[in-house]
């Protein structure tokens, strides 16, 4: 099996929110990278996940997003997402993650939602 890769960069261009740029594959093996990114976003009241670079995700990856949501909820943080392709948007709807993650088309829309 080929090694699947994932990179996450955390930016804080706006006060109170952190943007996590996801690039690569999210699987059950991505926990350390995802939680490291989450820790870098410490202090932000909203975490915005940029999925424009998402290349692959399996059910283990969806499970990790659920545990990320739980951690964020404990810290009274909200999670937003943008840049999902139609395919991944449908997966978020199927798994009902969209009940808890605000999904937007662009970064500007997501940032506007955080500030509204």
């Amino acid at each position, binding site marked *: 099996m080929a090694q699947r890769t994932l990179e996450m960069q955390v930016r804080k261009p706006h006060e109170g929110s952190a943007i996590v740029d996801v690039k690569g594959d999210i699987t*059950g093996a991505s926990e350390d990278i995802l939680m490291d990114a989450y820790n870098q976003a410490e202090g932000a009241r909203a975490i915005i996940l940029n999925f424009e670079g998402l290349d*692959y995700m*399996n059910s283990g990856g969806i499970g990790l997003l659920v545990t990320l949501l*739980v951690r964020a909820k404990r810290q009274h943080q909200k999670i937003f997402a943008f840049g999902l392709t*139609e*395919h*991944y948007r449908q997966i978020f709807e199927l798994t*009902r*993650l969209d009940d808890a993650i605000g999904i937007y088309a662009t970064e500007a829309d997501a940032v506007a939602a955080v500030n509204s």
Partner: protein
Amino acid sequence: MSSSQEPRTDGQQTKVDGKRPEVTQPPEIVLGEGAPEVIPESEIPEEVVPPEISARDAANWAKQISTLSVHDVSAEAVNKNVDGKRVNSPIQGFGKMWQKTYRVRLVGCDASPEEVIATWKENFPKFWPANNRFFGPLTGIAPGEVAVLNLALPGRLKLSTGVLVLYADEESFTLMTPQGHMFAGWITFSAFPKDGVPVAQAQVLMRANDPMYEVGLGLGGHKKEDVFWAHTLASLASHLGSEGEVETNVVCVDKKRQWSKAGNIWHNAAIRSGFYAMGAPGRAARRRFSP
């Protein structure tokens, strides 16, 4: 599979063995007598229109659905509490959130992870404890398929519920539960090598669906579930010629209960299965006296 192994989908030609492929000019097309009739784009059937370029995992996921629908299931199955239900992720559940991992090292087995998963999918119902039935579709475990479960409850009651095959690839598959099931969430079955030995794993991410199930899990339900999956993994190991010991690891991911989801009890499949069982004598009488 790495992305470099994927065929190109951008229409560009790729070098093969370092040589540029020969480029030939397409023949000139002249429309006239005998030429096929040009069909307006609006009249082209939908399936002929090229679809959006698929993601690498597109074939592994169930297609989007609003509610479950059971097809091609055995006549033996009590098919209740599945049709028309929505699936529930742990976000929609009520109780504490748990991640339970059951794992067995398949010592003495030289099967690849793909072979372990193929065997598991093919024989999935056979590995379950007695009196618990999994009625999968005739087409087997594939993304989007819905299976009916008839599970043993105390007092000879049978709980009828189901699962959706949310995801399936060569090395894993995931079942997601509907409204009314004991828990909201999913179970991922996977296989992978560790220290040169194949390992089979079942991992549950769940919350009890409603307050009644939450009480039930506290009063022995969790233990029963642990025994259930340990039995399943031991059966798989035995089928593959191994006698590995099943390890269980339980983590409470969220101690808080989601009281806003207490109303899930309306869909409770145990209560509904109980009412269905109570109606059995009446149904039998109607069958006997109906013309």
